[in-house]
């Protein structure tokens, strides 16, 4: 009657079944890590000198100077905010049709491939590279920055929107299709209500990414607060740079909180 059941149980290996291979792979990874770290050259004298600069920088950061360069800072800030807002609006507007086209369940195959290609291009090119390109094309300033951020927004929103559309509840779409609805009506009645809250959330999220990016691409000449930051750093005006960084942090935090609040509100 009483069968002796085992009293121990171990979770079987999930990916690699051979014990020897598992150990060999782990050892290989450790050896490579050690060798790789060994190849990084460190100039300790330079590091010491750098620490000194870091001290000056931290000191400047602790005593931020908003007044001396206020004109540059406020101009850069306005430019950045304008760039952020316009590029997000235009970028989202362009990425909606591209996102719909890149969703396999609603777009024909040819359209799908074209839209995916656009998204892939946009995502493959990092903002800085795109910014350098647009600065070379259209010169220094906010216009290059606007184009860069718009381009980056298309890849970001387009991809996430397409994935969201592919994840919708098909039953709702099927029900609308069964009423004899056209393709546009299907998008408007079955797809849009399902993806709208997430699209709004993503757009707000992209708005605050675009603001942060506007500070970065300014460094390569695409205008905005980044340009002001670059100028003050190259003039060794660390207290002005500190002031700019504090402003960026404050705005990003504000954007973060308000977008989080708004996202909770739209559901």
């Amino acid at each position, binding site marked *: 009657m009483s069968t002796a059941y085992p009293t121990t149980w171990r979770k079987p290996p999930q990916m690699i079944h051979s014990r020897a291979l598992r150990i060999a792979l782990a050892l290989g990874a450790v050896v490579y890590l050690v060798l790789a770290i060994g190849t990084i050259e460190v100039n300790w004298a330079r590091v010491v000198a750098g620490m000194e600069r870091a001290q000056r920088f931290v000191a400047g950061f602790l005593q931020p100077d908003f007044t001396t360069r206020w004109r540059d800072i406020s101009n850069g800030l306005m430019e950045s905010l304008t760039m952020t807002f316009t590029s997000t609006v235009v970028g989202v507007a362009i990425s909606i049709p591209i996102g719909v086209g890149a969703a396999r369940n609603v777009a024909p195959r040819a359209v799908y491939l074209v839209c995916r290609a656009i998204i892939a291009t946009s995502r493959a090119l990092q903002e800085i590279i795109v910014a350098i390109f647009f600065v070379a094309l259209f010169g220094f300033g906010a216009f290059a920055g606007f184009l860069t951020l718009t381009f980056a927004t298309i890849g970001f929103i387009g991809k996430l929107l397409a994935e969201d559309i592919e994840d919708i*509840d098909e*039953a*709702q779409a*099927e*029900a*609308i*299709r*069964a*009423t*004899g*609805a*056209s393709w*546009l*009506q299907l998008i*408007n*009645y*079955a797809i849009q*209500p*399902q993806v*709208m*809250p997430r699209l709004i959330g993503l757009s707000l999220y992209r708005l605050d990414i675009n603001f942060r990016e506007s500070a970065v691409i300014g460094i390569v000449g695409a205008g905005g607060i980044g340009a002001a930051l670059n100028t003050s750093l190259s003039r060794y005006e660390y207290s002005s740079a500190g002031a700019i960084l504090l402003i960026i942090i404050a705005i990003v935090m504000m954007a973060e909180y308000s977008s989080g609040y708004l996202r909770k509100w739209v559901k």
Partner: protein
Amino acid sequence: MLRIEGLKKTYKTGDKALSDVSFEVPQGQVVGLIGPSGAGKSTLIRCINRLVEPTSGNVLLNDLNLPALRTAELRRARRRIGMIFQEYALVERLTVMENVLSGRLGYVGFWRSFMRRYPDTDIANAFRLLDRVGLMAHADKRADALSGGQRQRVGIARALAQDPELLLIDEPTASLDPKTSRQIMRLIVEICRERGLPAIINIHDVVLAQQFSDRIIGLQAGRVVFDGPPAGLTEDVLTRIYGEEDWTAMRNGAAEDAEAEAEDKAQAEKMLRAL
């Protein structure tokens, strides 16, 4: 009238969902389509309005051969075929009214539907239908704020808003409790009677099917293995459709159910009289 001739469906994976299904549904008849899971019930009703493309065969709705239609003609044909779904399939973030009006999408242009400016007659009709299914007070609520039974009533109103010539009903009671299931089935059958609508109801619950339909079609592995009146569903027939099982126990349960329902009704009438 609906006539299905030699309908076949083989999925790309090679699964034969339907092999040579033929039958006719005259005006006003409510057909209960029963069969085990995977017998092809869902595929069959979706092949009628071509949510699933049939491999071959004819589906004639009032002499219009549906499988032969091109896209625009198919849309025009679909708007006369109402469909009611398992799990309701309402667009959850739209209001109840929008869901009912979506039954008119095949009749109005894109801008009208986009601006939600439907013709007056459509709106009046939508309110009339909401009143008919007892949801007049809920028109402006979001669909996901309703209970299961209420949602299925909206689903019914949406299908009726299409002004259908045929109702396709896929497991209408699969996610409802027994009492609500009976109310929903009764409502569907009443509406079919009122309008002389033919309907095909895909249903798991044999007892419900017997109780509410005029005719039963039993599907097994993509073939019709029974076609007859509900009374003809003997234990032999059930075994032919579903395989070996103790059917008497189910029968007894059903008898108890019916008794309980009769009691409920008597109770309700008593209360009404007391009022």
